[in-house]
């Protein structure tokens, strides 16, 4: 796990360094009159320090090699993330309800490998539910060239 801990510490350390630099540029101000970057600067500095300590505490080799993902376990989350991003891109073009129907089909077939029958059932029930939900709560869902 130490290798992964070092990796996460490094990533957040870089966020801290970037955050501190960005906060200084916005305007630190002074203790008497704090500027917009005053609070973020101290936070980013604290993030950098804690990440550095975390990194140093995880130096050395692992006694047992630990992997965050077992073989192929990342595939379904990756596919689901892909489906979600395409979904959000389509909402503006096709409208909320149509793109939700497509998302259901893609999720069932690509992520879950379900049958066409269960995908169709999900589309019908899910979109009907969405329509009712948005009507009851009076949410103006975006419409595309379909519905």
């Amino acid at each position, binding site marked *: 796990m130490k290798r992964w801990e070092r990796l996460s510490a490094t990533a957040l350390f870089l966020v801290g360094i970037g955050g501190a630099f960005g*906060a200084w540029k916005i305007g630190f101000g002074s*203790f008497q009159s704090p500027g917009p970057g005053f609070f973020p600067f101290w936070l980013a500095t604290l993030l950098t320090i804690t990440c550095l300590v975390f990194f140093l505490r995880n130096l050395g080799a692992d006694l047992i090699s630990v992997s*965050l993902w077992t073989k192929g*376990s990342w595939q379904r*989350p990756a596919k689901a993330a892909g489906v*979600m991003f395409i979904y959000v891109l389509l909402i503006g073009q096709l409208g909320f309800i149509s793109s*939700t129907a497509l998302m259901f089909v893609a999720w069932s077939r690509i992520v879950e490998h379900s049958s066409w029958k269960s995908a169709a059932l999900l589309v019908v029930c899910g979109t009907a539910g969405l329509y009712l939900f948005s009507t009851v709560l009076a949410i103006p869902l975006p419409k595309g060239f379909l519905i």
Partner: protein
Amino acid sequence: MLEMQGLLNGFALAITPVNLLFGFIGAVLGTAIGVLPGLGPAATISLLMPITYALGSPLTSIIMMAGIYCGAMYGGSTTSILLNIPGEAASVVTCIDGYKMAKNGRAGAALGISAIGSFIAGTFGIIALTFIAPPLSSFALKFGPAEYFSLTLLGLTLAAFLSGKSMLKGMIMAVFGLLLATVGIDPVTGSLRYTFGTMILMDGIDFLTLAMGVFGIGEILISLEEDMNAELVTTKIKDIYPTMKDWMESRWAIGRGTVIGFVVGLLPGGGAVMASMLAYAIEKRVSKTPERFGEGAIEGVASPEAANNAAASASFIPMLTLGIPGNPAIAMIFAALLIQGVQPGPFLLVEHPDVFWGVIASMYIGNVLLLFFNLPLVGVWVQMLKVPYSIMAPVIVMICSVGVYSLKNDIDDVFMMFIFGIMGYILRKFKFELGPLLLAFVLGRILERSLSQALIISSGNLAVFISKPISAALLEAVFLMLLIPIILMMRGGKQGNNPS
């Protein structure tokens, strides 16, 4: 006496048909979603929060959210007992004996004692809330910016300290959450911070977008790696009311669980998860027959379930009186109140006594409703557990998307929610606790405001934080919190270096 007067007024508000109806709907929806594996109270509230926005009245909204929260706490145990998958983190230990009882044909007794224990503990917690909250609120009126800064800092430190195995990781998440809260327009100077020249970040990060992302979407992505279709105990559930023998065996367990849960629930970051685990450990320790634990001991269900419900009620105290939410679910209720124009904290009792007492009264009512509806509706919850996760997951994605979109009618928010979902997934994979991140995000504005005010008032003199007795005491507690892990680390290092 004032408490009784306030409480009676609260009941008068809570039993209006509209509030009663939404309290009931909240409790049923909370239980229904809380029953689903992988969705805890925080995710349940975030999913259902858009519904409460549409209600308009802050009182009705918080009544509904309190119902959702308590319902989700009840619902989590059903999944643990029947499916051996905790419906929420606080029910993890309920799986151990609850599922064993179900396997032994005593699912009804396990569900029954869980509901009754939860009811007793929840009611005790609310009674204590009724009498502790007003004096604590009056005391907190003495707080100035320096005291608020120190108190918020203590809350965050405790949250990091109690959040998981590593305090350092908890601290990193808390600081990261605070940093995320600074994104957008600076409320004092109007300058843009960390927007990277984009319009999407100009308004800052919305709490619900972050919460639904890390808790809703992140949870789904993690669940996709696991097999969520575990074996459901399908034997007919009968005899849900405990026998005299069950009652005699579990009465002290419920009592101990209630007290432990209440005390732990008061601590920021402690909450229901820690309370249930501590209660189970203590129950096993004090038992004359500890070998029964893990084999279907009814005390192993009664104690943690009582503890997590007492903790759930207790966690309202710091939120309503000090304005410090103790756990992610309460943080969501806190954020929802802010959006409705109500600032939780010491002034809540003065400025919005209707909200304050209405919530407490509705919790009494909600607890009774949950007891009377949950047991007869066990069959319905079991049916819900039969819905495969392959159907639930895309439906949850849809609900999250509609919920976030409905905030500002902006698709960019949906996009950001998915980004936070992936962030939540990655952070979970790296074993970071997300509770401190969300708590810090909510408290970020309060911390920044109180720090700036204290510094301006004192002309930049940092001694303001230690010259005031309350602030100094709170900072001392923060210092001690930070010192404990360092001492433990050094002692551990010494022992590790000692060859013997």
